[in-house]
């Protein structure tokens, strides 16, 4: 079937960047209340204000977990302004499969958590 491509299943079964960071400057937790999915985001910035390490913790469906894992690979090198401007389309492009309306919240949960983490940063 289309939705569970090999790459999505690979990120789900072998997650990248799935670890906590005690010294992260930006942090947020987001839930998807309809299914209990949970994503916790940790962003660490270098001296120039760019992300040098992005990680996550969480559990939930293959779509939310794989999308978040893929997203953490995209963040290093980006400033908080660049991250704040990330578009939903990035997630759809990373997943590379059609996302039905019922699964949009799953797909975007990690990006929502990343946005929250940036918003939680003290100015």
């Amino acid at each position, binding site marked *: *079937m289309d939705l*569970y491509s090999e790459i999505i299943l690979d990120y789900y079964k072998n997650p990248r960047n799935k670890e906590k960071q005690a010294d992260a400057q930006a942090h947020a937790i987001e839930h998807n209340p*309809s*299914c*209990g999915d949970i994503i916790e985001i940790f962003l660490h910035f270098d001296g120039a204000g760019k992300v040098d390490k992005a990680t996550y913790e969480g559990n*939930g*469906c*293959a779509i939310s977990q794989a999308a978040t894992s893929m997203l953490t690979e995209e963040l290093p090198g980006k400033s908080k302004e660049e991250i704040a401007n990330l578009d939903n389309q990035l997630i759809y492009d990373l997943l590379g499969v059609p996302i039905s309306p019922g699964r949009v919240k799953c797909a975007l949960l990690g990006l929502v958590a990343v946005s929250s983490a940036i918003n939680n940063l003290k100015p």
Partner: protein
Amino acid sequence: MLDAKKLKSQFPILKREIKGKALVYLDNAATTQKPHSVIKALTDYYENINANVHRGIHTLSEEATEEYEQTRNAVAEFINAKEEEIVFTRNTTESVNLIARSWGDKYLKEGDVIVVSALEHHSNLVPWQTLAKRSGAMLHMLEPGDYRLPAQTKLVAITSMSNVTGEKPDLKTVVANARALKALVFVDAAQSVGHEKTDVQELDCDFLAFSAHKMLGPTGVGVLYAKSEILKNIEPYQYGGGMIKVVEDLSSTWADIPGKFEAGTPNIADVIAFRKALEFLTEIGLENIQAHEKMLHEYAVEKFSTHPEVTLYTSPGSPVISFTLDCAHPHDIASVFNEEGVAIRAGHHCCQPLMRRLKVPATARISFYLYNTTEDIDRAEIALKKVISIFK
């Protein structure tokens, strides 16, 4: 025994294909499909009778009123109540809110206890949580199987059947224990009324609520049963047209029950069409529906249990089976089932307290009705094998 295959042909939607495969509908605990007779009653109403009910002198209004009230009569007969004890609402949730406001706000005070069970759907929990906050009463949650009530209990609000596990609390014991404390009993019967016989006299509950759409009827019609002595003594829930007796400049008096609880133009068309659903169920016989669902339950449990990856959460013979897989999240399970043309539900099913007790964030759920067949279960098992092959 009923002939599910033959019955299926009376439900137009079940001829649909999803993803190129014949639809298998196993999400009946959320809402059931509608037979042709119910759909036809809706168009018949709008094409031939449409008029506002009550107070109309012209023929259409008289006919609409007659049909509307005939459904009230049919509902009363269906659960062995009196007509004046049947209030039409939008859904079960509104029936709960009506009593939480109209009864709860009048009688509950600090020191009183409202009892709910851990099986409750949020609709039979959140209105009582907020009533407790307004009134200063305490809310007490019973663990499954525990029916001991605190001495200050004034109301027990409890489901007749869990929409997650199909578990049926022992309502006889609940009512007996409540009576001993002079407490009242509110039964959320949304999951059971269309599946097994309900007799409010025999049960002796004070309130009972359910929705037409979970028993072949249209959406937008809920039923509240309440003993007439209680309905007479509580205030209306909403105010406006239709529910008054005399309107003075500065104050008004209320219509007799049940009219005083039906403010504004009611959902006439859907109420009228609901009668066709009741006729459909009566013709088949609830005892035959129950026996058919028991057969499907046993068949499905046997099939699903052969897969060691599966954990089942269900009750013997019930039309509801929740399950989880050790290798896939419920949302992923439901997505793969959908690819196979099998409609199931995944999530917390509006039962977060129960999810915590089952120690799962969510479950996948199949739920049957009279038109489901063993072939439907076979299709579900094919989908299940597909999930396991993808995620294992």
